[in-house]
């Protein structure tokens, strides 16, 4: 098995390839190492390499080869370059509408200047277009695994480069030794900037091995100084004998793994392994294991419970202390626990609430900036320092605030009640006056309507009397035909409305008398009726028929006498 992070492998050879792709003429020095013997380093370093002092910027990193990336999910066929059959890397679209990796189409056009798919002639670069952004988006979203051996990082393709260049601990970087032109995994770079590639001779086999590979060499490669295992006769490398005995040797005496459950078997590993398969103590062993786990959990829980209890006690104590302080403070100035209204907490206060360490400090500051902030008005400002020193925790601070706010609430509600009472008193007084006026008005309206009624009834009364007289006269002259004819020409009043006589120009005379046009076929002219002042009492109680003379009620103005 090749050791991981051998700089000469993997990315280096790929870079040689990708550099050739981008037609950079000078191949990297490392590409000269023969690929067939990747790990064997020339015993004496190439003098040419020694003289070159490579620059150390980030561009020193090997480029990622996108064609060998391992994609996590299966990639849609349409996103595969038809030439390399991998998801497009820096794709271009031709005039004929086909998309390829830029590198692939460049290579293909060198051989044949036509589109590989439909063979239309293509001019290198002139017929290249940017593919739609949606293609780029889709490619960016593909999930890939980091190409570094040993790194299991998975990210979307667009973030791969950042991971590879900046974060991945397995990325091969240049050796910190300016005289060494090899690469080394970032995590192996020693802080002393010593070259990890310098050769050290193996303790056991006298082979010289790069320092960075020493552990791998010990564990897997070194074959020097073998010995025979005294138990199983196998040939084992000396420094691995211990490990062999502990883990592998089939002849070593070991105990059954269920000995914790009481199994007494101890024998050679071979036998014990066979025995373990059906060891009768296995069930007990499982139970014992489970019990141990349970006990651990219980202990864990108990610890947590204890911690919680202590915490609770502490909190309680603090709260009690705080309450005590508050009662002490509030008794002398209980009447004046009123905080002048403040719109909201300042930023500092909020900060202080979040950070208990800031609280006392902040209160102190605040005292200087805004003396009546946070402080009951009735309290002497000399008490502030002591106050601020007592607010050791945010709970205390909150409690104080809460109590002050409560006091303020009470005060406000009192004020509110007062205002309320005042308001209702005002209202009552105003409505009373209005009510009285209303009543007065109502009575006046009543008087008016009585007057009108009285007047109308009087008129009707007169009218009836006149009519009765006329009927009697007509009956007396019934013998004459001429009189009959005249009677038929003047029908009695109720059957048809008589023509309305002209309204006299002076409807109301100066003496406050009502001028009433009595009208009708029987009325001649106007008559002056005495004003009904003081005649309310003489009003006739009722009229036999409710019909009223329209002319009287409509056209006349009533005197505004009340």
């Amino acid at each position: 098995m090749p050791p991981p992070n051998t700089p000469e492998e993997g990315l280096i050879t790929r870079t040689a390839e990708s550099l050739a792709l981008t037609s950079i003429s000078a191949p990297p020095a490392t590409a000269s190492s023969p690929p067939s013997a990747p790990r064997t380093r020339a015993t004496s370093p190439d003098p040419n390499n020694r003289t070159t002092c490579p620059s150390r910027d980030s561009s020193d990193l090997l480029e990622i080869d996108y064609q060998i990336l391992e994609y996590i999910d299966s990639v849609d066929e349409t996103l595969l370059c038809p030439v390399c059959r991998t998801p497009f890397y820096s794709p271009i679209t031709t005039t004929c509408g086909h998309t390829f990796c830029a590198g692939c189409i460049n290579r293909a056009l060198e051989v044949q200047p036509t589109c590989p798919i439909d063979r239309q002639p293509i001019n290198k670069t002139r017929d290249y277009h940017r593919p739609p952004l949606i293609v780029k988006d889709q490619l960016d979203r593909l999930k890939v695994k980091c190409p570094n051996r040993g790194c299991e990082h998975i990210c979307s393709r667009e973030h791969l480069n950042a991971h590879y260049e900046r974060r991945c601990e397995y990325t091969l970087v240049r050796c910190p030794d300016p005289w060494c032109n090899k690469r080394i995994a970032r995590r192996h770079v020693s802080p002393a900037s010593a070259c990890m590639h310098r050769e050290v001779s193996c303790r056991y086999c006298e082979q010289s091995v790069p320092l960075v590979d020493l552990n791998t060499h010990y564990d897997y490669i070194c074959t020097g100084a073998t010995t025979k295992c005294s138990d199983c006769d196998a040939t084992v490398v000396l420094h691995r004998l211990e490990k062999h005995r502990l883990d592998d040797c089939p002849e070593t005496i070991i105990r059954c793994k269920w000995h914790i459950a009481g199994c007494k078997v101890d024998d050679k590993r071979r036998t014990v392994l066979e025995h373990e398969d059906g060891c009768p103590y296995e069930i007990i062993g499982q139970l014992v294991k489970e019990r141990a786990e349970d006990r651990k959990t219980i202990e864990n829980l108990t610890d947590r419970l204890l911690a919680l209890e202590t915490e609770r006690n502490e909190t309680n104590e603090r709260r009690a202390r705080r309450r005590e302080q508050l009662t002490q403070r509030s008794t002398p100035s209980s009447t004046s626990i009123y905080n002048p209204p403040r719109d909201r907490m300042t930023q500092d206060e909020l900060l202080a609430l979040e950070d208990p360490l800031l609280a006392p400090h902040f209160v102190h500051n605040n005292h200087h900036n805004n003396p009546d902030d946070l402080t009951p008005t009735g309290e002497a400002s000399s008490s502030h320092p002591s106050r601020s020193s007592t607010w050791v925790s945010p709970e205390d601070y909150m409690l104080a605030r809460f109590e002050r706010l409560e006091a303020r609430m009470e005060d406000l509600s009192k004020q509110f009640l007062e205002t309320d009472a005042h308001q209702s008193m005002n209202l009552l007084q105003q409505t009373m006056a209005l009510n009285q006026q209303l009543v007065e008005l109502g009575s006046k309206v009543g008087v008016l309507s009585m007057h009108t009624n009285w007047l109308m009834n009087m008129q009707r009364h007169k009218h009836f009397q006149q009519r009765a007289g006329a009927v009697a006269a007509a009956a007396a002259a019934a013998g004459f035909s001429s009189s009959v004819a005249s009677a038929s020409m003047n029908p009695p009043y109720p059957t048809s409305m008589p023509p309305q006589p002209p309204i006299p120009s002076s409807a109301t005379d100066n003496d406050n008398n009502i001028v009433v046009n009595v009208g009708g076929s029987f009325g001649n002219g106007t008559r002056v009726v005495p004003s009904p002042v003081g005649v309310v009492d003489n009003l006739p109680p009722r009229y036999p028929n409710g019909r009223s003379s329209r002319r009287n009620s409509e056209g006349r103005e009533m005197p505004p006498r009340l």
Partner: protein
Amino acid sequence: MAGTFATKRLGKELAKIHESLPPGIELVSADNFEEWFLDIRVLDSNPLYLNQIYRLKFKFSAQYPIEPPEVVFVKLADRPIPIHPHIYSNGIICLDLLGQQGWSPVQNVQSICMSLQSMLTGNSKNERPAGDEDFVRGNRLRPKDINFYYHDNDV
């Protein structure tokens, strides 16, 4: 050894071939990325090729798939060379697809096999190309270096 570009592309193709292949095509061996063997047979009942299986040898250059692979039929005891006016008796195939001009990088092993299948299916002439004997006797060139003249578009 084939170049990395070819290797990567062939790796993808091989993975796909292991996944599925069209009927009548079978992978025989692909131990490296230089030389593969595949078996093909004709699917319809063309009497010329009925019940016969032919072996194809693919040789990939480092420039694959920019350059075409070298594809020939191989003669074995149970794998004859199919009779076709464009296939010489030494297995060399005269097909424009496999020449420098007719090749396109979007072709692959599977598409070549399918082209050959259809080339056999469409043939009804029981004959070898003209001058087959002379060619077979005298040819020392590799198939890719032979200048074929693609004139016959019928088959």
